């Protein structure tokens, strides 16, 4: 019994699923922030154990969440495909060594930090420039949609750049890129589900953006896509960074025991 589903991985997956659900629920319901943060566990498993394990973690997280009395309900379960894709991608990034530390210093480092921050900020621009978003949205919510979006993007950019620079680690740039790409793909996959099933809304804070886009005249699918193309990359980038921070906090000895271990840890790092 080995490979991607060794006993160690089997032990990790339920913990990751629980982290996904509890954190996702807390962020969306208790803290009421317009991001998801329900994929930390999925990406962690993908990076540590590989694409199949990551995909399984994602899919099961959504299904179990739907089914849990007390915090279940809504229609999270329908998006299991998206979660599986996120896990799959994370496994690929892990295998490619995206999450491996790459110490650097000086101008190279500064450049990387700036590019990383730039990537994140870039995602906000279409929102800010589009007049549609600035119109008051439906449903009696105040106008905090745009400031919230900008705040989150700025925080994300600062974290990304700061992390890359302070840790003297080029990996920050690669992780940011991986997060953005994952987010874009996730948005593309979830838009059709969202559009067909729910007419474009999912009951979370991101619905305001959909509403705004619709008002501008886009059809249901494009509105879902538009919303997704903002929230998902930001969310997945933040999540990817959280996973990276978690990984750097784990003892290299332990990380080395996971299937992707050799791509995540530099040989000299282990005492």
């Amino acid at each position, binding site marked *: 019994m080995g490979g991607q589903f060794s*006993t160690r991985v089997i032990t990790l997956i339920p913990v990751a699923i629980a982290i996904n659900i509890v954190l996702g629920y807390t962020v969306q319901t208790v803290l009421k922030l317009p991001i998801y943060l329900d994929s930390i566990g999925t990406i962690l498993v993908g990076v540590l154990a590989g694409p199949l394990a990551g995909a399984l973690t994602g899919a099961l997280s959504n299904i179990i969440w739907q089914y849990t009395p007390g915090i279940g309900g809504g229609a999270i379960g329908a998006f299991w495909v998206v979660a599986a894709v996120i896990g799959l991608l994370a496994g690929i990034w892990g295998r490619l060594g995206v999450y491996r530390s790459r110490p650097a210093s000086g101008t190279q480092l500064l450049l990387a930090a700036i590019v990383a921050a730039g990537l994140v900020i870039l995602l906000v621009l279409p929102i800010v420039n589009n007049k549609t978003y600035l119109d008051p949205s439906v449903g009696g919510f105040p106008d905090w949609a745009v400031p919230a979006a900008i705040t989150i993007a700025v925080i994300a950019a600062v974290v990304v750049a700061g992390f890359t620079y302070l840790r003297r680690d080029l990996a920050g740039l690669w992780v940011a890129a991986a997060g953005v790409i994952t987010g874009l793909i996730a948005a593309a996959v979830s838009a059709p589900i969202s559009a067909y099933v729910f007419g474009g809304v999912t009951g979370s804070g991101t619905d305001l953006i959909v509403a705004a886009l619709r008002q501008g005249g886009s059809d249901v699918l494009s509105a879902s896509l538009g919303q997704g193309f903002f929230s998902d990359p930001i969310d997945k980038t933040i999540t990817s960074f959280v996973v990276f921070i978690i990984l750097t906090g784990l003892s*290299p*000895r332990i990380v080395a*025991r996971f299937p992707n271990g050799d791509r995540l840890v530099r040989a000299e790092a*282990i*005492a």
Partner: protein
Amino acid sequence: MSLALTEVGYRYAGATATALEGVSLRVEPGQVIGVVGPNDAGKSTLCLVSAGLAPGSIGGRLEGSVLLDGTETRELKPYEAAQRCGILFQNPATQQSGTASTVFEEIAFGPRNLGLALAEVVERVEEALAVLGISGLIARDPHRLSGGEAQLVALASVIAMRPGALVLDEPTSQLDPAGTRLVGDAIAHLATTLGTAILIVEHKTSLLARLAQEVVVLDAGRIVARGAAATVLDAPDLAAHGVRAPEAVSIRRALELSGLGDRVAAADLEVLGA
């Protein structure tokens, strides 16, 4: 069944420093051997190596020979090693499967994994509970047990695999005095009743004074002292290796230093376990 290590060296996967070097030790059936030493001495590594989990489950480089009842651990898969040598860790909560609603199911977890017939599974569970004297817990919820009870259930789960040897890595460090006593008594009982060969790592040297016949001091991956429990635990240079002597020994020394040594009867100190 015996546990025999000969010139054992071990290095963790990817590490450059060795965690164990030149370790030789032998535990006979029914014997209890204690292991003491400072932090990072390699005591936990010694446990993992003895139980066959290193290198079997965590990789790494093993040198020398680790024999469980005559078979090398490196030739055993983890589930085969588990049936020869059981291992108990310090945290009772992490050793629960988390999927059992009764203690019975929890202890049955191991035998069921082996695919044994239902009748035999039940027999092993009841036997494990009886040996440890906790048959009364059979229907309780594993998540609602006290620390000592949970640790005993974990021990029962391991014994249900019918290992001939047992390795315990600081089993009482997270327990209160009551729990410590429970577990200590259980361990003594196992050695005498089932004839299990027991290797126990402990910081509580008083406990070892009571349970172990021999004690081994491990420092920086090597054995630096060994002998009868009473001798080793009384040695003056014990503190140099980061080990606290049992209370009784400290008391006796304090008395001697203050000149009251001869006033206190030797018999009184024996009661304290010196």
